[in-house]
């Protein structure tokens, strides 16, 4: 318990908490100037999220892909790379899962794992392309990942419309039952919310993230390259190989996000006009979470809760749900400008300390 208190009063925990409070306050101020009642709005938000078991389950479902894409961006960051390609990797993950899910006919113990693997590998390869081009040709990964996002969008649309189309619809056939990864028992407890294996696997992914980076030799290399590529090169590590590996692993995380949206939630893939947004949200989640797996999980939880609850806010208080993005933006602003919060907190803390002495 003393440990918990010590962790909670540390800057690393205090700054995000203060930032969240400030974010909610800014949101409230904007709502007030718009003539809305922020208290009603926030109450409806909370009611929407924890009002009934179904909503709780659906909130968890909303959080899951955010953790995956957050891990994806964070992993690349740790290696000194900026992965804006979460969108594309997510889409390729969906496409791999849909292809295997629709086209193959296998027993369930083989079908679902194969579909997951296909999506993960496709997402990984999509990230790997950017890594390879950076390593071999020196092409800035920011550009390639942005371009690959668009290419993935159109490539996926082509694959669906050419090979997987449900006639008369703008979407693919349903995946076979044997490839679905719904958690029936858990879903029933949560009022048939769309809960799936991904919820468990994402936790494993976060643990794997931690172990790979901090407990293995490979992870040491990745971090060394991220920290100082020249020193790493001098120490005999291959910077280029590590860049490709990091982008591949990062891509796999984002790909898995897409995989479970197909296998666990929608069971089909639509022909999309725009990319789904989870990849970009992943950037925010990773940054808010300090590029640490635990931070990513917590940031995704906040993010997913606000996003899911925003529908309740617009229903209950008539507030446009977009205000949630302003709140999230403000929270990230204050976390990033932690110097600002620290300078405000410091006098408070000093006062408390002198109080203890006297």
């Amino acid at each position, binding site marked *: 318990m003393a440990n918990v208190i010590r962790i909670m009063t540390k800057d690393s925990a205090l700054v995000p908490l203060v930032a969240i409070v400030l974010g909610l306050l800014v949101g409230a101020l*904007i709502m007030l100037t*718009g003539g809305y009642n922020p208290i009603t709005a926030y109450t409806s938000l909370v009611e929407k999220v924890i009002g009934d078991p179904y909503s709780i389950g659906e909130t968890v479902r909303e959080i899951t892909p955010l953790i995956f894409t957050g891990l994806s961006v964070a992993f690349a960051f740790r290696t000194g790379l*900026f992965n*804006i390609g979460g969108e594309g990797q997510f889409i390729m993950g969906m496409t791999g899962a849909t292809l295997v899910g629709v086209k193959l006919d296998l027993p369930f113990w083989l079908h679902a794992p194969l579909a997951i693997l296909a999506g993960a590998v496709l997402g990984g390869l999509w990230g790997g392309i950017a890594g390879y*081009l950076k390593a071999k*040709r*020196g*092409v*800035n990964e*920011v*550009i*390639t990942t*942005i*371009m*690959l*996002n*668009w*290419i993935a969008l*159109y*490539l996926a*649309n*082509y694959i669906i*419309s*050419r090979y997987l189309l449900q006639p008369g619809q703008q979407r693919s056939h349903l995946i076979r039952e044997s490839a679905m990864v719904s958690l029936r028992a858990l879903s029933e407890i949560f009022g048939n919310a769309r809960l799936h294996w991904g919820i468990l696997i994402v936790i494993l992914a976060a643990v794997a993230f931690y172990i790979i980076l901090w407990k293995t030799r490979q992870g040491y290399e990745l971090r060394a390259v991220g920290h100082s590529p020249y020193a790493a090169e001098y120490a005999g590590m291959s910077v280029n190989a590590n860049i490709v590996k990091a982008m591949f692993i990062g891509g796999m995380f984002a790909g898995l996000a897409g995989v479970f949206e197909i296998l666990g939630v929608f069971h089909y893939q639509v022909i999309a006009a*725009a990319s789904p947004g989870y990849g*970009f949200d992943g*950037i*925010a989640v990773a*940054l808010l979470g300090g590029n640490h797996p635990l931070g990513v999980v917590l940031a995704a939880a906040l993010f997913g809760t606000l996003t899911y609850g925003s529908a309740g806010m617009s229903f209950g208080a008539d507030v*446009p749900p*977009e*205000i*949630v*993005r*302003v*709140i*999230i*933006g*403000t929270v*990230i*602003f204050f*976390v*990033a*400008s*932690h*110097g*600002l919060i620290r300078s405000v907190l410091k006098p408070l803390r000093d006062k408390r300390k002198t109080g203890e002495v006297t």
Partner: protein
Amino acid sequence: MDFLRILGELMHTTLVFSTALIFTAMGGIFSERSGVVNIGLEGLMVSGAFASAVTAYYTEQAGFYSLAPWLGLLGALVFGLLVSVIHAVASITFKANQVVSGVVINFLAAGFTVYLVKMLFAGSGQTETLNAVFHKVAVPLLSAIPLLGYAVFYAYPTTYLALVLVVIIWYVLFKTPFGLRLRAVGEHPGAADTLGVNVSRIRYICVLLSGALAGLGGATITLTTTSSFSHNTISGQGFIALAAMIFGKWHPFGALAAALFFGFAQAIKNFVQLFDWAKSIPMEFLYMLPYILTILVLAGAVGRAYPPAALGEPYDPGKR
């Protein structure tokens, strides 16, 4: 179809598609040349597109019909500048990670603009369609030149403005003392500081300029092609402008060339379909074309791009 006519039409469309990218990429150059990463270009464009649509709509309603698009442009410039203050404060004064701060801009802009549009336009996700928008202007005499006249000298006023700006910005960056200081701050802030250059002030000016220019970039789209603003008016063009800036190696003419290249690739997509041999190519592959071309050109011809040396590092005088 006559080959020359197609070529002229292609160049004409290229300029239309490129204009917004040129403005925004120029904004990116200011910010990044001074050492501040600007991932927020997308959000700044969104802000500009929003502000221009709203300003033009209300001034049009107030009766300033022919002035409305120009006031829209001004509104975008001011609002883009105001939004970029957030990026400047966070990344320069509070030494926040500049990438994070840019992402903040994208989030705030996306949320706040749509929130306001819904408030101002009775819950609708897009602004009312503007009547008073820019129209193409033919430059006297020059527009009479065969082929080139239609291709280049019959364009939106914003296009001319963008092209003139590129030259001005090149001059400012490479021929004026301010440009020298700006580049020094981006390459070696410590050295610049020693020589009496106020690093923070230069960076502030540059980030605000990037906001104003990206705002103009966003306005170009609403005031010429879409005539309204919604959440998907910009849809990634800020990121394309970012790519154009890197592609152009942080140089105004390089970025101009890159923006034209992107515009060209977009334009080609519309024209390939005119040819019989291209009918069998699936649409999706044509859509992919600009992006694949970019990667191929980057990987094959351009190669390594070296950013300003101090890009992304908050300036800490203590480390000098």
